């Protein structure tokens, strides 16, 4: 526990203030710094994090592919189970999949794909394929953002050798800062917000270059990361 009166703690704060040559902040200075935090000001958003819907989705796709993801676009969410089945078959992957217990994702018509064997819940070590949703995606670097919670066990992002993410094009934003705004809104609690236990920013499959600086995919996490992108933006602009 953090303890006021903890001698180690007090010594560190005293040392910091002594080196900086000033006492603890006044109540007014604290208010100013708290205000500064509360504004959540972006420092500098690169041009590449800006743009309109279609442009951002194209950029997201290009950046994700550059990070070794594969991306397939489908016209409607009803096509997701079929696209997942196709991907697994084409790549000779297991057809036993673990679905994130997310109401939208599990509400899709998985029964339409009799070759798929589905179950829900956190990952088990023997699981080979996880299928999950994402909270948002960032065009800037082709990054997916996932939030932990009852509907999305964190282990699904890391344990199985293959990770398939069903993403709606309308979830793609330009820059990371837009995700933080959405996150604060989605988890609003009182005057603040409640961070989920884990926020995972995922850019491509797991990789390492620790042996002779040659890149190998699937170091500890997924060897492949496939994105089924649902084109739900038609007529939105």
């Amino acid at each position, binding site marked *: *526990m953090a303890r006021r009166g*903890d001698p*180690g*703690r007090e*010594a*560190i*704060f005293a*040392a*910091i203030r002594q*080196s*900086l*040559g000033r006492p*603890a*902040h006044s109540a007014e200075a604290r208010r100013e*710094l*708290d205000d500064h*935090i509360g504004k*959540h000001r*972006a*420092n*500098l958003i*690169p*041009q*590449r994090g800006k743009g309109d819907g279609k442009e951002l989705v194209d950029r997201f796709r290009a*950046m994700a592919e550059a*990070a070794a993801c594969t991306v397939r676009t489908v016209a409607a969410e009803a096509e997701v189970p079929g696209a997942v089945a196709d991907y697994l078959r084409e790549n000779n992957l297991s057809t036993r999949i673990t679905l994130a*217990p997310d109401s939208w994702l599990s509400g899709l018509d998985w029964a339409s794909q009799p070759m798929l064997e589905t179950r829900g819940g*956190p990952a088990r070590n023997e699981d080979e394929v996880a299928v999950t949703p994402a909270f948002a995606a960032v065009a800037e*670097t082709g*990054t997916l953002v996932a939030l*932990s*919670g*009852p509907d999305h*066990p*964190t282990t699904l992002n*890391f*344990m199985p050798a293959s990770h398939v993410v069903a993403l709606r094009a309308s979830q793609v934003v330009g820059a*990371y800062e837009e995700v*933080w705004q959405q*996150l604060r809104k989605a988890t609003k609690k009182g005057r603040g917000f409640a*961070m989920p*236990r*884990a926020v*995972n*920013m995922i*850019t491509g499959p*797991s*990789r*390492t*270059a*620790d*042996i*002779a*600086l*040659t890149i*190998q995919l699937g*170091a*500890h*996490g*997924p060897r492949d990361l496939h994105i089924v992108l649902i084109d739900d933006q038609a007529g939105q602009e």
Partner: protein
Amino acid sequence: MEFMNPGAFKANAREALTDENLRSAMGQLAAGFVPLRQAAVDRLPEFDLLRERARELKDHILANLDFYLERFERNCTAAGGQVHWCATAEDARQAVLAICRTVDAKTATKGKSMIAEEIGLNPFLENHGIEPVETDLGEYIIQLADEPPSHIIGPAVHKTKDQVSDLFLHHHRKHGRTERQTEPAKMVAEAREILRQRYLDADVGITGANYLIAETGSSVIVTNEGNGDLTQTLPKIHIVVTSLEKVVPTLEDMTTFLRLLARSATGQEFSAYTTISTGPRRPDDPDGPGEFHVVILDNGRSAMLGGEVQDMLRCIRCGACMNHCPVYHSVGGHSYGAVYVGPMGAVLTPSLLGIAETRHLPCASMLCGRCEEVCPMQIPLPRLLRHWRERAFEGDGVPAAERWGLSIWAWFARRPWLYGQGARLAVRLLRYLGRERGRLGKLWGAGGWTDGRDLPAPEGRTFQELWRQRRGKGGAA
């Protein structure tokens, strides 16, 4: 090679220069990271502006460090986490041990953490009956080899593929592996399978933190392998070991540093996994650790604030300075005899351990300035290296010959006419001595140079003479 003894730098460097494996590995490093970083920087036109913003932001954080640390503590605690303040390395080791003992831990998996290296956590845990298991592939390799890291982001960058093959063959026998693998893909797969079971068996997972976020009380790790995430998600307890200067005010501020980190480190646009962790598993969470502890280390950092070396606290540990350092390329990381190596280590190590034992480190540089050019946080590394050279000269332990030599040089340098005459004489003498071959194979008092290579003989005139001559011709002044 004497690990963890900065006083052994000269002997270590001499040994390293004749190590063929090291030469081969270091050659690959320079050929790899340097162009990759440049290409990533070229793809982002705002890169230099981001560096400016990041430097301003970090200076603001350091000037208000106590405030942001208090906010971090308050919000981390509110989210169910526990913060442990540790003034010294010993305090931090004891804090980690006490947490491990609450669950009677037998093994602890570890994500890559330089702070864990700094406090010597692995040998300490071993001595107390807890087996530390490194899970970052590079850290795993050097744990098998019983060596410290030689690079802050690529700990095993000094090892060739063949050396890793031998290590795996030797150490994986007890896991039933008897074939010597030579393809990197197969080697990675073998380590993955062996380590996967270790994650599942571990009682405690220990990671570092790239950032602590004040507004949310979160810790942040950046990895490519996903090992840090398995380390912190699967065991009952997640312990973060980190240091004071890692705190940032908001998610937006973290974002600014993230835009610089991977590009500077590996030339990636973004690392594969950036994970923000806040508190333990919630009541309705299907997975995650039941406890979340953050061990915050000072260990000399608070004393760096407000002084000449404060700028070093801006470091975000990308490794660009060592990737671009000609001295690091030649001698490798182990020669420094310290946890932090390369230019950033040559500044940080004296700041943390004192200059007396570390006085060779700031001299392990040609002051060519490439480190400062590529530093995403604009740390004036050459200036800080000079600062430590001056402090070293003021202290004890400088050999008499070095002290006298520099004093004599300084005496002349303050008397320009005499200096000019002396230089004229010396240049003409050297020219005469090297008149046959244009270079000198041996020179009294300069054995440190001529033992390893010839000294080119001067052409006959001093710089000052040439300068005067050119100015006389109406060249640029």
